[in-house]
């Protein structure tokens, strides 16, 4: 689980949305009028205002997410998700209303969404990794060797992106960051490909 202690009301998306999350709203509230004004102009199609708004939001949201997500390498991904959500929902901001509650409601929703997904992925990955470790530890036996061969054979049948991500990270031992840089994919995408590759492998081996 990559979540810090988030305070009351943060543990579930279905619990009450506070108007401004505790300890996180001071930055936005200080600039509330300015950000609201920038959003109004962005709704009219002003690109410069929108760029300025998003840049200001990036740093505010970076601090907000940084306090809630332990894995610092993931903070940028969450911030990007929030910015896309802000972009999708920009028509729902109503002129004259405070900007802080609007943007923090979206940020909180996307952060919780991310944390839930990560915890689901984490649970699944840990199961597979432990079984792989067991497989490596007992590879002296002939059946374990056969299993390993089976797994490697199935790896070659995976879709290109999944195979690449899995081989580079799990077999060659490279970090997610290294693989992302080498392949040109985002770190998040590499993680998802690895996760999906493990899922596909499991299905293949179960079906065998």
């Amino acid at each position: 689980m990559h979540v810090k202690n988030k305070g009351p009301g943060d543990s579930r998306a279905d619990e009450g949305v506070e108007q401004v999350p505790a300890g996180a709203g001071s930055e936005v509230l200080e600039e509330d009028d300015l950000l609201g004004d920038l959003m109004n102009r962005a709704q009219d199609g002003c690109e410069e205002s929108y760029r300025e708004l998003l840049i200001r939001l990036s740093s505010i949201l970076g601090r907000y997410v940084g306090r809630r997500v332990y894995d610092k390498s993931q903070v940028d991904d969450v911030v990007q998700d929030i910015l896309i959500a802000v972009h999708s929902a920009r028509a729902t901001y109503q002129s004259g209303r405070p900007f802080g509650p609007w943007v923090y409601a979206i940020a909180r929703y996307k952060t919780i969404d991310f944390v839930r997904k990560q915890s689901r992925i984490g649970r699944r990955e840990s199961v597979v990794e432990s079984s792989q470790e067991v497989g490596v530890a007992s590879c002296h036996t002939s059946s374990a060797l056969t299993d390993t061969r089976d797994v490697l054979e199935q790896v070659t049948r995976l879709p290109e992106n999944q195979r690449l991500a899995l081989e580079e990270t799990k077999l060659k031992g490279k970090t997610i960051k290294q693989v992302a840089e080498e392949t040109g994919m985002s770190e998040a995408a590499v993680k998802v490909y690895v996760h999906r590759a493990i899922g596909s492998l499991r299905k293949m081996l179960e079906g065998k």
Partner: protein
Amino acid sequence: MKTTELVDKLAANLKPVTPLPSLPRRLMVWGSVLVIIFTGLLCLVGARSNLREVVFTLGFVGETLLLVFAAVLSAAVAFTMSVPGRERSYTRYIPVAVLGVLICALLVFSDRGVISQNALDILKAGHMCCLEMLILSIVPCLVIVWMLRLAAPIRRAWTLAVGFMSSALFAAVFMQFTCSSTGVGHLLLTHMTPVALTGIAGALLGRRILRWELNSREPIFDEKETASEPREREL
């Protein structure tokens, strides 16, 4: 992709948008659509045979006003919940509380003579009412889904549950003018059950139907690859 690159992409893809209309305006649109639909239907189907006798009775007026109030309030809550940051933690419980009050009021206002009837008998006799209400709710449900999808609901399941309840409550108002039965058992079992059923359906479907993050057809969403939604075609 770095955040600065994303910012550039989002800004480059910016198009002017029409801000979402205010809550009263959305409510007015929603109400007008329903009034038009149900008035048209009433002209087609015809009113209940004993409407003249009951239309000025306290029971009928009370029930109808309460149903209209509950329907409008539910719609208002659904529309409020569909805008980020507008909802208070207690907002979503209001329609449920009002429905409880409505059921209590039905017990007070309605004809008590039928309450002693067996629930199964009432359901058997009034199952057509139940079915009619469910059918009548379909179009209002579609309209409210369309209206909610224009916004960005955070609590999708609750929002659609309340929205669907509102649609079914409007159907219940319509039934007030077409269904001749006045027994409280009939009203509770065959007019309120579809309201509960549609609410449950909304809660179950909300997460899927109201996914506003993927609504946009702007180019940025074809190109951006995020941790949560990697492009399926590449996998």
